[in-house]
């Protein structure tokens, strides 16, 4: 690799970290999702054990998850403040996708300029960039590792000296997140494509795929045994409430998904698939195409979360785009226009930068969707003024943030695994805020053992809820704030009645 390429790659990597950190530190605190991670890391820091038995989530329940990512973050939290760890480490991990995709593309095209461009795309895929800046998402570690595994898979096919690195990546990916199942499935489809396209089969490929399949099966079966036996096949949908799943798929339009993947990676990636299948067969391209196809099929059958699917699709298409760019680049070298090939690359870069700028502003806006100052005040008031064991009703998105700041039980948060009758609980939580009659509201509130109801600014902004219609001074009494004001301020109500008796 040329020195200039090394420098450019380093600059890209550092630049990505700098932009991500700049955006992340614009907002105080984390996005709502991030507080689930924060609670796990804090628990590890204090007790050494992740929250397998979470007394605050859903009023107290067991969880199943892989703790590897939380332990990694917890390790840093011993010598850095927690908030800094949750803002910096995930962004550094996410930026690693740039060198990973660079080396992956280099295997496909052996062209440093083109590979650098593909790496640039991968680092700034809107779906990935916007959704992983300020929420300490586990995907910041999963996505680079996913493609690093693919990279070592290709390398090991050439030379078995990389086998141990590949085994390491496979094991780490498998224990980190169930996304390893997507890669295992992609490799199966890849083997099928090799047979169909009559490639000379390397003897190592089926061996590694077999190993990967058995490892993924066994580890996931052991790690998620309880979830598998509780939810059966539905574990594939992670017990996400049907309404959320439905809304996430119905709300996104074709344009929305193209935007999420990025127009350039999509067009160039699809071009690469076309060329590799119908004109110039390349084994390496087939692997990336298999990943894209697998994710597409999973998205089509709604067997993967929309955001996750679009991120995987976007990054795999970005890696694929190197092949198509190189194809055009090589072709332009043969035409009579001087430097046409270089002009092409500059033009692509220009388009990418123009596309990236508005996305950055959107990312800044999104990273700012953290609990507001007023909501934080409410959470802290709950911490100081309510009984330690009490349950507070907030929206599912706010559940972890409320429990983090208030140290009080929530009725629902965004980790749905192992929760029975999740659809019913979800609709109950949403409907309580719109209840008109005290009796039917009390039935639900008693059922979930709710002592306090919080109406936050977030709830007000998203659902237009400003006041409980069923509140009265006997049973559901407003306890926060003490003074009424004309403009909306977050409120807390205490539930004082149980149907048939009065709470002491």
């Amino acid at each position: 690799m040329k020195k200039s390429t090394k420098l450019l790659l380093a600059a890209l990597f550092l630049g990505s970290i700098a932009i991500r950190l700049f955006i992340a530190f614009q907002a105080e605190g984390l996005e709502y999702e991030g507080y689930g991670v924060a609670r796990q890391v804090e628990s590890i820091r204090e007790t050494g054990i992740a929250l397998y038995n979470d007394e605050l989530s859903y009023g107290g329940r067991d969880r199943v998850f892989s703790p590897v990512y939380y332990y990694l973050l917890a390790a840093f939290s011993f010598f850095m403040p927690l908030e800094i760890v949750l803002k910096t480490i995930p962004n550094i991990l996410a930026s690693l996708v740039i060198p990973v995709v660079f080396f992956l593309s280099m295997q496909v095209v052996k062209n440093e300029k083109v590979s650098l461009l593909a790496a640039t795309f991968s680092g700034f895929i809107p779906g990935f960039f916007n959704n992983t800046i300020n929420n300490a998402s586990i995907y910041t570690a999963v996505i680079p590792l996913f493609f690093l595994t693919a990279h070592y898979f290709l390398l090991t096919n050439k030379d078995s000296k990389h086998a141990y690195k590949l085994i390491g990546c496979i094991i780490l990916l498998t224990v980190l997140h169930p996304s390893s199942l997507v890669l295992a499935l992609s490799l199966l489809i890849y083997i099928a494509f090799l047979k169909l396209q009559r490639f000379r089969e390397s003897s190592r490929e089926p061996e590694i795929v077999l190993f990967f399949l058995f490892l993924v099966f066994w580890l996931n079966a052991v790690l998620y045994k309880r979830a598998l036996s509780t939810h059966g096949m539905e574990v594939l949908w992670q017990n996400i409430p049907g309404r959320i799943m439905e809304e996430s798929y119905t709300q996104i339009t074709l344009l929305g998904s193209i935007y999420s993947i990025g127009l350039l990676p999509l067009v160039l990636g699809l071009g690469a698939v076309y060329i590799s299948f119908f004109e110039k067969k390349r084994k390496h391209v087939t692997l990336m195409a298999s990943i894209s196809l697998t994710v597409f099929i999973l998205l089509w059958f709604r067997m993967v979360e929309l955001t996750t699917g679009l991120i995987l699709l976007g990054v795999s298409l970005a890696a694929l785009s190197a092949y198509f760019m190189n194809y055009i680049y090589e072709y332009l070298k043969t035409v009579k226009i001087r430097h046409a090939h270089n002009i092409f690359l500059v033009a692509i870069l220009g388009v990418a930068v123009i596309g990236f700028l508005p996305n950055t502003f959107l990312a800044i806006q999104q990273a700012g969707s953290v609990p507001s100052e007023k909501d934080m005040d409410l959470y802290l008031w709950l911490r100081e003024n309510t009984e330690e064991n009490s349950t507070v009703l907030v929206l599912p998105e706010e559940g972890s943030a409320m429990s983090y700041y208030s140290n009080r039980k929530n009725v629902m948060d965004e980790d749905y695994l192992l929760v029975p009758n999740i659809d019913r609980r979800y609709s109950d939580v949403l409907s309580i805020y719109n209840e008109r009659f005290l009796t039917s509201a009390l039935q639900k509130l008693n059922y979930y053992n709710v002592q306090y109801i919080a109406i936050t600014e977030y709830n007000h902004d998203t659902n237009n809820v400003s006041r409980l219609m069923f509140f009265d001074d006997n049973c559901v009494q407003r306890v926060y704030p003490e003074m009424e004001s004309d403009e909306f301020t977050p409120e807390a109500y205490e539930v004082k009645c149980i149907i048939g008796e009065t709470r002491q």
Partner: protein
Amino acid sequence: MKAIKVFGKEKNVIAIILLLSLIVLGGLQVISYGVHEKAFMGDETYYYMRLSEQYQEERVFDYDFLQERPVSFNLLYLVPGTNSVPVESTARILPVLGGVLSIFLFHYLARTLKFRKDERLIATIIFAANPLFVYTFTSFTPLIIGVPLGLAGMALFFRKKTWVSGIMLGVLPLLSVPLSLVVLLSVILAMIIGSARKNQGIMVILSAVLVGAASWLFLGFRPWLELIPSPSAMAGVFVELAGVQAYSFIILALAIIGLLSLWERNTKSVAVLLFLFLSFVFSLFYAESRIIVSMALAVYAGIAIISIIQREWNVEAIKNITLLLILCSVVFSFVVAIDNAFSDVSTEKIQGIQYLSTSDPGEVMLSAERNGFMMSYFSGRKSFVDGISHRYEEYDERINVAETIYYSRNLESLESTLKDNGISYVLVDNRMRQGEVWTGDNEGVLFLFRHANAFVKIFENAEVVVYRHMS
């Protein structure tokens, strides 16, 4: 492909496998006896025990007096019914013997079919470590006789012992109709691929038809009852997904790899593939036939393991880890199967159900379908729904009534529904409360149970609560 030399003398290996299976199956019976002397694995055990006891006392095998419904004749009732050994002892010993005998006969059949030594040994090990084997030979069901009988019949069939095999396979429908259908399908397959003479196959089919017809005329054999699929059969197909009489993902995956490796070696047979596919699809609806399909899967899984061992791997370490992972996965599904089999074995539950025997004869009890057999066995009272209610006409209506009761919040209509159906007791266990029916103590009828005077909690422990309707 050369045979692998990982095994010693075949007789010794088989002896060890038989001994291990005897220890495991016997050990499981001892453990369940240790939990409670009347605790058994598999809810069907209680059903067949009750009907066997009924036969011992009344000599009637085609009508269930307690549940007031016709049942199909089954040879199993005759086994404890025709001797003085208590049914409970038979229900503990017979499954263990059936399991050990089945392993021996499975290996004998593989030998008869001229599988290589290494193939038949690995296939036998996989068959014995198969979750379906665990379920089948820990429960007292007709399969504990049907499986060894079918295996012996098939072995003799391939050894051209036409008459004996004809009789053995002919009586198989009297133990399990779905099982015998898959066995007969494999007889047809043997005729198609030329492993058996046509007249032999026709003889077996004819004998099954004749025995079936005679039993229908004289013994009250009602095969159609067994051919009504259970609505929940598809829900528990894999043991890893909490299925009980279920396949293991890993053995299925290995079997597919085995099939693919045979395909690569050009030893494919469309007829065999079609048989496998048809019997697998059939088994999705009829859980009783899964044990036979699992034998075919064990054979192909064995072939897969041998091809993995014999393949020249580029990185020896990956090969060794892969084999270790396969071993771990097979052991994992075996352990999960045992865990699932024990899910309903609990002293508290039995104590709660036994309490129902204090009720008046003729009173009807309501609980989840899976508790029906246990309730009838221990209390001697009629269950509103049980594991074979789906075979009878009024099933849909009963399920609707049960759901109406479970989710009722109106005392007046609830009382009238209970009265119309003669239900006096409702047994609620933890699984029902924790998501199977309700998610909390105040949901649906539980609210009325707690607050209405018409209901009295007559028994409660850590596992079950029994409510009585004071009509």
